[in-house]
């Protein structure tokens, strides 16, 4: 069945029973209610701190067939999932669904647990490296295809009970014995805990795992009222993998050229003005855009409104220089930004729901502009940031579609050619963000405005910027490197390896096993 993004969705798949196909960014109405967890009455004298992960697993009542959740605030430095999965494996519990807010290369040990039936389903935002390749090329190794959700889509699914969490195992850098927890302090400090906040609140049972148990925690991101058990362990993460030092602005001339063009576009569109709000992805070009935005704000002597993180030192610098008034932060990317969240009252932590959940009042709806990267785009302005040029799962849906749907202007920055591969395709391999959400695509050789933004096209008709149609940009690449052959994928139903949910839960695409 063709959906509104032009994708043929095999609705006969058992895993899609009762699902809707994607019908447009805000097409689906909902009468859902928020989910509720069982009440847990705590008696005087009770102690929530348990001696081991084993004891927490037992007390939480984990059984075959349940869903367990993890967060990805520790990124590639996460120890928690492995600590927990080793104990679960030891206990012989099988047939689990892993509902992680994302998965990093350090989680490739899951391959073994998938092979032995401990893990039989995965729902995530990101998949990379060995695990991504394994799942892309081994359909049927899980009992149903992987579910890919955006950050806002996951918050929505968890909040309304569509994605039910039986037990949440959440690593927290600092915690007290009652379960008040923060990510701002501790050996494994990661800054905001936006994804963990949602899971802690909606899971039937919430287990916190910490390596810094202190008497009292304030301010807390997770309150004791959401917590069932607390476990202290040696280490929950590798600080080097959790947060890099300050992420630098790119020195890559192609990325800089793209950033410069994007910033110039923004300026000529009169978007940089008093109180304007924005989000920048963490890629090289978006961060360089921040620098240009800062310069324009200074030149114009105006103060921006809020910036949304993925907070980085670059964004923090703008806040500290008085160029913007606030940062709203759901996950923190570097150590400078983590320190800022702790120290600066205008650096505000928010949950993934408040960030991007389409079924609540989310911050992405208040964005004037968002800058996002892409692994590839197509002539219909659709964006893929999930599969590579060979059709292998290697990226993340992240907040891409959430911010693109909410922002008044969505700017995609993408090189025209990577290596030899043209990045403007006839059809992207996987649609994560529909073209209707995208307003302009900026490459190092020029930019293309989406024809459905006639207002912008009109505004830029006398501009000195190198503006082309998307087809002209595509041809520029083909003239240089030739037109690539399409990568073939299996058309068999049983070779669907992942389904891609749009943020409202409808199906925007499926990922099929590439024929190698």
């Amino acid at each position, binding site marked *: 069945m063709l959906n509104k993004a032009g994708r043929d969705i095999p609705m006969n798949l058992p895993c899609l029973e009762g699902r809707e196909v994607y019908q447009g960014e805000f097409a689906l109405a909902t009468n859902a209610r928020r989910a509720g967890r069982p009440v847990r009455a705590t008696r005087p004298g009770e102690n929530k701190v348990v001696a081991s992960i084993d004891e927490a697993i037992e007390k939480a009542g984990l059984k075959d067939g349940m869903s367990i959740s993890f967060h990805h605030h520790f990124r590639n430095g996460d120890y928690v999932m492995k600590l927990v999965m080793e104990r679960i494996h030891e206990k012989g519990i099988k047939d689990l669904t892993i509902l992680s807010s994302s998965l990093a290369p350090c989680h490739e040990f899951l391959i073994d647990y998938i092979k032995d039936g401990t893990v039989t389903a995965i729902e995530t935002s990101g998949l990379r490296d060995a695990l991504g390749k394994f799942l892309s090329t081994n359909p049927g190794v899980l009992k149903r295809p992987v579910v890919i959700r955006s950050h806002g889509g996951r918050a929505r699914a968890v909040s309304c009970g569509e994605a039910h969490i039986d037990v949440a195992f959440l690593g927290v850098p600092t915690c007290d014995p009652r379960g008040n927890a923060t990510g701002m302090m501790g050996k494994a400090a990661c800054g905001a805990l936006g994804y963990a906040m949602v899971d802690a609140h909606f899971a039937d049972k919430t287990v916190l795992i910490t390596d810094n148990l202190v008497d009292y925690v304030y301010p807390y991101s997770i309150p004791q009222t959401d917590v069932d058990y607390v476990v202290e362990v040696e280490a929950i993460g590798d600080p080097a993998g959790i947060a890099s030092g300050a992420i630098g602005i790119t020195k890559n001339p192609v990325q800089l050229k793209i950033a410069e063009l994007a910033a110039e576009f923004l300026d000529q569109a009169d978007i940089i003005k008093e109180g304007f709000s924005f989000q920048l992805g963490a890629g090289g070009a978006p961060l360089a855009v921040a620098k240009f935005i800062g310069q324009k704000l200074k030149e114009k002597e105006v103060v921006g409104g809020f910036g949304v993180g993925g907070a980085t030192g670059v964004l923090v610098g703008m806040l500290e220089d008085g160029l913007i008034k606030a940062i709203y932060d759901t996950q923190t990317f570097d150590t400078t930004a983590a320190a800022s969240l702790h120290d600066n009252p205008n650096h505000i932590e928010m949950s993934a729901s408040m960030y991007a959940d389409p079924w609540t009042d989310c911050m992405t709806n208040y964005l004037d502009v968002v800058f996002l990267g892409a692994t590839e785009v197509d002539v219909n302005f659709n964006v893929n940031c999930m599969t590579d040029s060979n059709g292998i799962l290697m990226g993340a849906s992240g907040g891409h579609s959430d911010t693109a749907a909410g922002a008044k202007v969505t700017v995609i920055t993408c090189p025209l050619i990577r*290596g*030899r591969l043209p990045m403007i395709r006839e059809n992207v391999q996987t649609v994560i963000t529909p073209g209707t959400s995208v307003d302009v695509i900026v490459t190092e050789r020029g930019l293309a405005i989406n024809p459905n933004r006639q207002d912008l096209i009109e505004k830029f008709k006398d501009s000195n910027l190198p503006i082309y149609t998307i087809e002209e940009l595509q041809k520029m690449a083909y003239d240089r*490197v*030739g037109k690539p*052959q399409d990568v073939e994928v299996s058309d068999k139903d049983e070779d669907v390896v992942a389904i891609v949910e749009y943020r409202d839960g409808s199906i925007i695409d499926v990922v099929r096993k590439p024929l190698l």
Partner: protein
Amino acid sequence: MKHLVKAATAGFDEKNDVLVTVEPIAAGIEVELTSKVMRQYGEHIKEFITATVKEAGFDGVKVIAADKAAWDYTIKARVLGALERGSK
């Protein structure tokens, strides 16, 4: 028709380059290709290398190309360079 007198190489094992080795064989033009972009450009690159060798007037050549997403002008330059080196 020109012929190689020995095996020779040109190019580097670097991004956007191709390491080309040519070897004399009895007759014909054979191409052995490994490429980062095999699925997107494999057929094209093989044909392009064959055409380049022919155009240069050679026969009895085996071309072994290890491609890291070189563009056509680079591929052509490396093939011609290797042929030249193998001719002396």
